[in-house]
């Protein structure tokens, strides 16, 4: 290939990767809703695991991003890791900063940790076949980056906005308005912070070690890389063994002594090609080279096994992960009040069922970020251990807006399916349960009705009680489980007088019956 072509690759890689990390990050912190929700989903088109999980459920074009990545890997290697993966680019930025600070300037060749990286990949695939995607949730690089954006960066942005807003309001400017910041969920914050520390620490001192040791997407793509048509190779005749390429290789995969490149670990950053003064390291058509090494044979075999396993597992992946949900000790009386009994988490409208949701959601928290009321919160153990970090509706924080479908529009994994507003209005994610013994109308014999007031379908209605008082009554058929009643109920949790019990399989609610208003005899006179 001509020399000037190789010189263009690195700047091109940097431009594309910065573009993706910027738009992806912006999608997570866009609290003024400047980007359309569907646009946010399209930005995540290439994100491997969400796209793959979505494709399993609905093999359509918008879910085919992972196929593009696979084809790319079979042509020129793991470009996903350097161009498209936001966590990869985040590490590159850390590495760049370390270089600028003159702390970590050069890299050297290191041996791969094959047992660890393929061990993690195999366990992840086996668990996936057993309908458990907990390792995808924990280790999918896009989802880790999403959680860093949503759990760590987003609150900082919101607080900055509110600080700015307060300053501007004092000056009489009201265009920057304050926004509410949800209280952090401890477990999610802990996992996200720990992961961020691990990734950043590895990047600071070991280049792309995370991508080549822990990341299951990196490990899977590495097998495809070995089968790639074009691979980066050292040309013996041209190489002067100056080791310059080795010192810039973030993947530690260039072995100049043996004149080999471990292409399974090459993340396609093109630093080596940019650095080599002799054009000695470059893409080669490996078929033409006819250098099918033993390693490559092995690689292809392993890849075929992994590939088969992956797709063989697919049909099973939609099966249930029933049961194993944490159960409260229900019915414990406290001061005559009844403890709320919530055996299951409430999953977002459009998530079909826990069975569907738990095997599709990788916990990237894009929906958590875009949820305008913050009712969507990362779960801890509410779905069971295989569903950690997947979002659930927490009605103590807020409730689900009747006309809002944002989470269903942004989900890149198809875990939350797109709903129209009309579909949303009849999607029953749970049913309100009224606990009379906790209700202030019963305990204090004073008026309240906050639940019924907020109910968008009047599934919670006030009916005569005693002494002119009215008390709530639930019509389950038209309740959609939005949780407005639970949020509005003035009794403190876990003794809410009305709360949502989740439908683990979402149901269709009936539309509220709409009676014609009988025309009031137009009174022309004032009644006073």
């Amino acid at each position: 290939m001509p020399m000037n072509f190789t010189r263009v690759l690195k700047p091109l890689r940097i431009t594309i990767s910065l573009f993706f990390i910027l738009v992806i990050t912006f999608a997570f912190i866009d609290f003024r809703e400047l980007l359309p929700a569907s646009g946010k989903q399209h930005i995540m088109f290439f994100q491997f695991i969400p796209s793959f999980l979505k494709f399993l459920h609905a093999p359509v074009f918008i879910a085919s991003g992972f196929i593009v990545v696979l084809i790319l890997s079979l042509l020129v290697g793991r470009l996903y890791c350097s161009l498209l993966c936001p966590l990869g680019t985040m590490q590159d930025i850390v590495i760049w900063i370390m270089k600028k600070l003159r702390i970590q300037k050069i890299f050297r060749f290191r041996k791969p940790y094959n047992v660890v990286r393929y061990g993690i990949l195999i366990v992840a695939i086996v668990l996936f076949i057993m309908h458990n995607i907990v390792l995808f949730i924990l280790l999918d690089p896009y989802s880790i980056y999403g959680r860093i954006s949503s759990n760590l960066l987003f609150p900082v942005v919101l607080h900055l906005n509110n600080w700015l807003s307060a300053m501007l309001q004092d000056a009489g400017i009201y265009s920057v308005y304050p926004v509410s910041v949800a209280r952090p969920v401890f477990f999610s914050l802990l996992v996200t912070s720990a992961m961020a520390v691990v990734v950043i620490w590895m990047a600071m001192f070991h280049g792309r070690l995370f991508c080549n040791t822990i990341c299951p997407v990196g490990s899977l793509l590495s097998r495809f890389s070995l089968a790639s048509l074009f691979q980066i190779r050292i040309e013996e005749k041209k190489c002067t063994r100056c080791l310059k390429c080795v010192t810039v290789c973030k993947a530690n995969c260039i072995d100049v002594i043996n004149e080999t490149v471990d292409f399974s670990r090459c993340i396609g950053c093109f630093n080596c090609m940019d650095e080599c003064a002799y054009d000695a390291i470059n893409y080669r058509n490996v078929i033409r080279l006819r250098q099918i090494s033993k390693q490559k044979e092995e690689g292809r075999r392993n890849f075929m096994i992994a590939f088969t396993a992956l797709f063989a597992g697919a049909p099973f992946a939609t099966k249930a992960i029933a049961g194993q949900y944490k159960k409260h000790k229900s019915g414990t009386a406290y001061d005559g009040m009844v403890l709320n009994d919530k055996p299951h988490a409430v999953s977002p409208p459009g998530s079909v069922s826990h069975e569907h949701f738990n095997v599709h959601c990788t916990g990237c928290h894009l929906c958590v970020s875009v949820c305008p009321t913050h009712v969507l919160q990362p779960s801890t153990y509410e779905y069971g251990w295989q569903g950690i970090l997947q979002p659930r509706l927490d009605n103590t924080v807020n409730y689900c807006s009747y006309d809002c479908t944002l989470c269903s529009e942004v989900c890149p994994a198809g875990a939350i399916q797109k709903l129209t507003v009309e579909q949303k209005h009849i999607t029953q994610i749970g049913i309100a349960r009224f606990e009379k013994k906790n209700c202030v109308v019963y305990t204090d014999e004073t008026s309240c009705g906050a639940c019924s007031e907020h109910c968008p379908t009047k599934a919670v209605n006030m009916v005569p009680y005693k002494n002119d008082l009215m008390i709530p009554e639930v019509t389950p058929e038209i309740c959609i489980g939005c949780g407005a009643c639970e949020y509005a109920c003035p009794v403190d949790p876990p003794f809410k007088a009305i709360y949502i019990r989740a439908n683990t399989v979402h149901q269709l609610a009936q539309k509220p019956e709409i009676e014609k208003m009988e025309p009031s005899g137009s009174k022309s006179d004032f009644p006073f």
Partner: protein
Amino acid sequence: MKRRQFISTGIKAGIVAGMVPVVSAGHQQQKPFDLVAVKGGEPGAMFDMAIRSLGGLSAFVMKGQTVLVKPNIGWDAPPERAANTNAGLVKKIVALCVQQGAKKVIVFDKTCNDWNKCYKNSGIQQAVTSAGGIMLPGNSEQNYKPVTIPGAVKLKGVKVHEAYISADVIINVPVLKHHSGTTLTIGMKNLMGVVWDRWFWHEHDLHRCIAEFVLYRKPTLNVVDAHRVIMRNGPRGVSVEDVTEMNSLIVSRDIVAADAAATKLFGKEPDEIGHIKIAHNLKLGSMLLDKLNIDRIKMG
């Protein structure tokens, strides 16, 4: 500078105050109306008629004052559902205040649904900004300051939006609606939208809290929008079928009287509504409409 401003404002206020009785006296000689009820026009036009009957807006708003206009913007619902105060009415009031020389005309509500959507879809945000008013967000706790309420039994202290505390003039512009919790929501109930913690009210005798909050500060003027009225499934309403056209407006300085008259319009008796009865007994106003001097105007 400050003193001079004060004196000049004082003189102008004096002139305006002096003019009012003169105008009324020339018009019809009788004591000023306690309440004006209008029927049969557009909300904005009905307000024009009503405020003229009360001596013009200049009797309430003076040049350089800060005015809070407090509509009901509680719900994310389009205007035809009548879950929020009529945007045209709010626009008219804001425009008149600006015309009157108000320094600032502020509008806000602590909404029940997502405030951005409520402000926008009610049409009120557009109406207010186009009339020269300022829409303040009501969703931020930092804007709410604790106050104590003298003479209250249940609601001794509450966090109130600073705009309600500091405004020179407060124009309360509720919409008349059925309400599942309090039977009706009118003027006093509308003031729940200026406090931070509503749960406390629901937990501690809602009707009494609603009445006792008026002890803190009475609005200068109450304008009840009864143009379109939610007759059932209130206060949010489920569909337009819950709405009936009343084409009425009630204006009064007396919040209890305004609520009582609106209650009658709805077809109920004032003493059926807990907080109206309590407020009457607390002498915050009068629900005895027979004893009030009412101007009844029919338009078109």
